[in-house]
């Protein structure tokens, strides 16, 4: 295939038509503004979206969200649906961080109440919520417990003293998918066991934020959100356990692809038929990894409650608004060209965004649509959205997952000093605590696209609707 030239469909959408010489089985559709498209074209993400279009059994187009950037095999910010009967499942289409996701927690405190004690709060959270870059988490598992965590997800944590019953109900899929823990290798279990309840490093973080602006009063009321209210956003995933599950199955699928007569332009896309023993084993292990991630975010929230209690003498009545994953493959049904299809929706850096009335959303949100949380880059802004019907028609119920990276880690570090940058945040009223000095520099807002522009695209394309913009006050990261 020669140079990729996306053709404009309308103000927010672009198409890369199917090209048989590139072995594409379908088109690529990209959601982006003119400005974002210019940035997207600078890395390999469109080539990767084209490669995804070669997957056997892909249904509908290979989709790219406005935060798309170069990943491994799949682009980050990509969505691909494959037929459950004759399509493939690709561990790379889920990613190494299985069920990396976001949970948003509301407090009963206002910005004015928290601001005077912000330093104490940030220090306390930093002490109580382990990042886990150098050591172990604080959740101790007895022999045999890990398999229960892998089967029961957030519910196991809640039943074992790490949270309230309501917490598990307000997570996507109830905080657990049907899983096969015995399809998770001992190596993956070794890597994960000591890391339960830890934040992780890289782009994972925990932010104390306040509601800066409401865009939809009705939806905000259903989420019990008010202007000036303090919330906490937790962005974390399945830690070493999920990473090893992906590693194990990419290796296995590379071995068996020949048997199934599959050849692909990039080995990182390694896949197997979804119905094959290898495909089924992966889906069972992936679900176990996803459950570990829900349990992990539940653990982080539990330690967060403790930190609020220590600082404010009460727990600030921390309640889970919702918990969404953005790295996952889920079996869902959609109408495609007038026909109902059962598909595996691979969301790699993309968030589920179901519309009002969908049976998989908690009753509290039935009338407003599923809450979607889009973390911006560290210290800028995050967004609360709700899913819209158009996402069901166009994007297999999916939207973006973040701002999307623009600069490499070394490019953003160049010529910058962590202490100077930390001071700059403080001047803007944002306290940052990081376990590693590079952690601050590598995740500076300059390294990312403008999250507001990304949100503008999904809002105007009708995939999701704006509810609230959140401003950070305190950042804790690995």
């Amino acid at each position, binding site marked *: 295939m020669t140079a990729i030239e996306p053709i404009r469909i309308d103000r927010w959408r672009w198409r890369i038509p199917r090209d048989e010489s590139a072995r594409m089985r379908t088109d690529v559709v990209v959601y982006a503004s003119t400005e974002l498209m210019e940035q997207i074209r600078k*890395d390999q993400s469109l080539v990767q979206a084209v490669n995804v279009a070669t997957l056997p059994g892909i249904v509908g187009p290979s989709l790219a969200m406005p935060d798309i*950037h*170069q*990943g*491994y*095999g799949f682009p*980050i910010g990509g969505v691909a649906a494959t037929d459950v009967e004759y399509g493939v499942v690709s561990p790379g289409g889920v*990613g*190494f*961080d299985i069920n990396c996701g976001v949970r948003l927690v509301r407090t009963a405190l206002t910005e004015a109440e928290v601001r005077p004690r912000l330093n104490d709060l940030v220090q306390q959270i930093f002490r109580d919520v382990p990042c*886990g*870059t*150098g*050591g172990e988490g604080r959740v101790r598992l007895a022999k045999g417990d890990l398999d229960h965590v892998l089967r029961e997800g957030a519910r196991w944590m809640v039943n074992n003293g790490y949270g309230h019953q309501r917490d598990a109900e307000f997570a996507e899929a109830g905080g657990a998918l049907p899983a096969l823990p015995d399809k998770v290798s001992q*190596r993956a279990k*070794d*890597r994960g066991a*000591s890391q339960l309840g830890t934040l*992780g*490093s*890289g782009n994972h973080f925990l932010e104390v934020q306040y509601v800066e602006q409401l865009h939809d009063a009705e939806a905000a009321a259903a989420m019990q959100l008010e202007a000036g209210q303090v919330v906490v956003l937790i962005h974390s995933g399945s830690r*070493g356990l999920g*990473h*090893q599950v*992906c*590693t194990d199955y*990419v*290796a296995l699928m*590379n*071995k068996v692809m020949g048997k199934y007569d599959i050849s692909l332009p*990039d*080995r*990182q896309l*390694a896949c197997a038929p979804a119905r094959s023993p290898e495909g089924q084993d992966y889906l069972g292990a992936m679900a176990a990894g996803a459950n570990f991630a829900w349990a992990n975010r539940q653990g982080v929230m539990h330690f967060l409650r403790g930190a609020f209690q220590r600082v404010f003498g009460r727990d600030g009545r921390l309640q889970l608004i919702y918990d969404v994953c953005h790295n996952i493959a889920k079996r869902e049904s959609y109408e495609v060209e007038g026909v109902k299809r059962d598909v595996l929706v691979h969301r790699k850096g993309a968030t589920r965004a179901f519309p009002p009335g969908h049976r998989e959303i908690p009753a509290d949100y039935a009338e407003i649509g599923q809450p979607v949380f889009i973390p911006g880059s560290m210290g800028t802004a995050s967004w609360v959205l709700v899913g819209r019907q158009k996402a069901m028609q166009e994007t297999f119920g999916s939207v973006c997952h973040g701002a999307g*990276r*623009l*600069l*490499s*880690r*070394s*490019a953003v570090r160049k010529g910058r000093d962590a202490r100077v940058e930390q001071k700059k945040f403080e001047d803007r009223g944002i306290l940052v605590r990081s*376990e*590693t000095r*590079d952690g601050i520099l590598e995740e500076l807002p300059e390294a990312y696209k403008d999250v507001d522009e990304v949100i503008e695209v999904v809002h105007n394309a009708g995939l999701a609707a704006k509810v609230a913009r959140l401003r950070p006050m305190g950042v804790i990261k*690995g």
Partner: protein
Amino acid sequence: MNFEILEHPADIGFRARGATVPELFANCAHALVSIILDCRDVRPTERFGVCADGSDYESLLVNFLNEVLYFVDGRRIALGRFDIGRLDENGIECVAWGEPRNLERHPPKLVVKAVTYHQLSVRRDDQGWVADVYVDI
């Protein structure tokens, strides 16, 4: 050590060299460990068998490095020396030396999730063997 860091928009990679394939694999292992932690003061007090198989040098290298990663991230071992034994395109046997990770002497740098096939290359040039490897962080 014989490697340099490569750019990636979201993650990180390295280019390692070696006069021979075993030397190349050992240098790649060193590069990986040095991305994860400060490995200037690793004492070779314990030995670990690190073995992997593959269908060519590329898949062998990815599988071998993911095995090294398992020891460093899963078993919390700082590895500092890699004695490569048998090595062909289908398999590698290595004895790695190191000690339990110590926060003071081996300050953590980055958490590596996995070693990937992204733009992976193992090749020979006029100076010997070269590998480009990208890891997910």
